[in-house]
């Protein structure tokens, strides 16, 4: 039997980055906020202190901080002609779990998207003509511009204390920063991290080729920093256990190190952990959310009524909860109708490995967002006309550590085991390096999410089904970008390089990033978007949907800065517009 709880003003589903940001902004506006989190409470001292945080087996290989697929997973197929099968163990991407969400185990690469990324369809059509785009590509504009969300990027970066060097301050190019970035209203809160050997060599090589290398913007801080909420982070110690790990040193920006200590002191905030929301409830009209239903660890069901529902789970689970709750029209690719599950996108990464004779990189000295990059081949920073594809990415020397189980790089032709393998690992561990391209993934009519007809979770709910494959445009792009990266790496003087462009078909068994995007995208036309420019549901105006769920396609940058800027942008709209006059913020 479901037990009904007293009503609250706001219920938040998921207490990661966006949930923490919204909770802080809305409690600050005087609202009573209840956050419901599927996983446990997590904090530095209990879950990943430096006494045992550096555990590659536990955290990276055995996924200690991640969601258990037994609790929730999804099915996958490459195309509609296949039968989707469940992802039984995480490999391709790694959904987080617990308070902090993905913000706990991210690398803290804190990139802004380019101004043209937000008006992608308009921009590319104007520059190259509409016939230049592949026929079934469904990219679209976001409905918000870079200039509109710049203050919110700034706000998030100053929350985190992000370390970097501006390349564009109010329209003035700055030496040493990314000359292709959109204008910033002020410099980064803290200077860039110091760089290890490989990054410095890469930057020298890039300069010789006429490029403009710059330090990767980092949420692993170069120095101690106290943020506007009064929370202090320490300087990063380059331990090399960042991605997949919690930071034992309070030096990686996360909800734990930037917001939660302040948020928890708000008397009008309450978090319930190990409680999983199973659906968003609607009234009889179907146009108003009445709250959520969740289960605790004893499978007791609770109803939490609320005036405002904020869906702040990870992208995939946002889409799933919308589908499960019957909110918005599910996407149907054959009819090209509906919006929930439409425009799913991901990321296209590739690598160039390099083996040197005379170098010692000490690869274990690193952070999740250290490194030197170039941005000449991102977005539309270069003329795509001669190349026959759209999209791009940043590239650079950004290896995040030398954790030995998975950093046993050997030259091509080395056997996978035996004496030769062992010798090759010993010979190359310190003197080899992996460089990376981190590129865009645009959306297509036949790439989407819906509910699986066969597989169910432990509660009998249908799993979500992902239908995804790379398209020719992305594979061409990956080849071109990887070739450009290889030219820089070759200048670093290696004995041998190995080019690893992304090839098809997409496989769920190979990790690239956890940057799954879309499925309930933002926009100005409700026939092709699920939420308006303030991330407010077109169908249920007292529901807002946060996260990369809103990205109409993914750009060639890591998503978190944009995810959190959008969260602040939406929070501003809720506080300054919605609360004064609850209802649709955009009329149709």
């Amino acid at each position, binding site marked *: 039997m479901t037990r009904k709880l007293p009503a609250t003003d706001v219920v938040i589903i998921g207490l990661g980055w966006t949930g923490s940001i919204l909770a802080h902004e809305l409690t600050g506006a005087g609202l009573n906020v209840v956050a419901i989190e599927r996983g*446990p409470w997590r904090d530095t001292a209990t879950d990943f202190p430096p006494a045992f945080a550096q555990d590659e087996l536990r955290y990276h290989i055995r996924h200690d901080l991640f969601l258990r*697929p*037994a609790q929730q997973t999804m099915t996958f197929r490459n195309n509609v002609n296949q039968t989707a099968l469940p992802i039984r163990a995480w490999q391709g991407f790694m959904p987080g779990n617990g308070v902090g969400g993905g913000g706990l185990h991210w690398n803290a690469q804190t990139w802004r998207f380019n101004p043209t990324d937000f008006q992608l369809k308009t921009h590319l059509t104007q520059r190259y003509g509409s016939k230049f785009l592949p026929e079934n590509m469904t990219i679209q504009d976001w409905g918000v511009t870079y200039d509109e969300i710049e203050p919110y990027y700034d706000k998030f970066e100053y929350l985190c204390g992000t370390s970097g060097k501006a390349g564009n301050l109010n329209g003035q190019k700055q030496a040493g920063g990314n000359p292709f970035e959109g204008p910033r209203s002020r410099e980064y809160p803290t200077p860039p991290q110091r760089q290890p050997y490989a990054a410095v060599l890469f930057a020298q090589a890039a300069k010789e080729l006429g490029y403009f290398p710059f330090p990767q913007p980092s949420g692993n801080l170069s120095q101690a920093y106290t943020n506007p909420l009064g929370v202090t982070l320490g300087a990063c110690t380059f331990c090399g256990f960042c991605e997949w790990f919690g930071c034992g040193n309070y030096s990686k920006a996360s909800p734990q190190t930037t917001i939660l200590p302040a948020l928890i002191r708000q008397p009008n905030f309450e978090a319930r952990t190990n409680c999983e929301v199973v659906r968003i409830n609607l009234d009889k009209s179907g146009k108003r959310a009445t709250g959520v239903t969740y289960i605790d660890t004893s499978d007791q069901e609770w109803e939490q009524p609320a005036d405002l529902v904020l869906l702040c789970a990870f992208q995939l689970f946002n889409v799933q909860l919308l589908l499960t709750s019957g909110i918005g029209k599910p996407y149907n690719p054959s009819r090209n109708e509906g919006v929930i599950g439409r425009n799913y996108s991901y990321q296209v990464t590739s690598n160039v490995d390099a083996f040197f004779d005379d170098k010692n990189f000490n690869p274990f000295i690193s952070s999740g967002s250290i490194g030197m990059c170039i941005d000449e081949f991102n977005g539309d920073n270069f003329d795509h006309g001669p190349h026959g594809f759209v999209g791009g990415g940043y590239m650079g020397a950004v290896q995040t550590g030398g954790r030995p*189980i998975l950093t046993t790089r050997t030259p091509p032709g080395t056997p996978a085991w*035996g004496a030769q393998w062992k010798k090759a690992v010993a010979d190359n561990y*310190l003197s080899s390096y992996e460089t990376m391209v981190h590129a865009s993934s645009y959306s297509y009519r036949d790439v989407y999410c819906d509910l699986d007809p066969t597989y169910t979770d432990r509660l009998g709910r249908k799993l979500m089904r992902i239908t995804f494959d790379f398209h020719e445009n992305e594979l061409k792009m990956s080849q071109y970008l990887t070739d450009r990266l290889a030219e820089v790496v070759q200048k670093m003087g290696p004995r041998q390089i190995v080019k690893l462009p992304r090839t098809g078909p997409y496989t769920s068994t190979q990790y690239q990033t956890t940057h799954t995007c879309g499925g309930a995208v933002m926009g100005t036309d409700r026939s092709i978007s699920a939420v308006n420019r303030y991330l407010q549901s077109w169908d249920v105006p007292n529901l807002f949907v946060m996260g990369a769920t809103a990205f109409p396609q993914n750009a060639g940058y890591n998503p978190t800065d944009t995810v959190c800027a959008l969260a602040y942008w939406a929070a501003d709209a809720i506080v300054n517009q919605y609360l004064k006059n609850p209802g649709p913020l955009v009329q149709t």
Partner: protein
Amino acid sequence: MTLVFSTTSAGALVVKGSLPWTPNAGDPPTAVLPGPWVYFIPEEGAAIEALVDRLIPPDPQTPGGKDAGCAVFIDRQLAGSYGSAEGLYMRGPFANGTPQQGDQSPLTPAVRYRQALAALDKYCRATFAGKSFAQLPDDQKDKVISGLEEGSATLDGADGKMFFAQLLTNTREGFFADPVYGGNRDMVAWKMIGFPGARYDYRDWVDRHNERYPLPPVGFAGRPGWVRQGP
């Protein structure tokens, strides 16, 4: 104030007013203890020791997989949550998919090892005049392993190629993981490659470029030199 969610069982928490902090609430790893096999029967243990010692053979500088503890590591992993596929999605229906859809086997790692090792034993005894894998000379052991790797050695009742991949993965995990898990004994694998282990602060070293980091590795339990000798 932190309360266990009243009226319900443990697990669900209400957090309000202050961070939920209690002394000694950390969850460090439990160290593997030496001693007899926990999961393997003796014949399986002997086969695994022989296998990991060919996957990572000893050389004058660095011990092989057996002396590094890879077999002990695998045994303890199979006896624990990894072996039982805890936390993985193990609901049916089970169907073979494309390689892109990943592992769809209904069998847990522990069961896969048991079946594969029994099948390997049968294969070796049938092929090599009644000898078990562990009894074969090194060159024949290597031929058997290559046969599994390439799929040319067909096992009866197990997927040899899949077993090879899993065994190699687990052997490397044991070789390079922190010694608390039973492998990488005395941090031999970390010494071999120059990885300093569970250190946490390289601020003095990040811009000392192209220099060999001088300090020896440490694990979660320190290193042998830290243990007081004698009374």
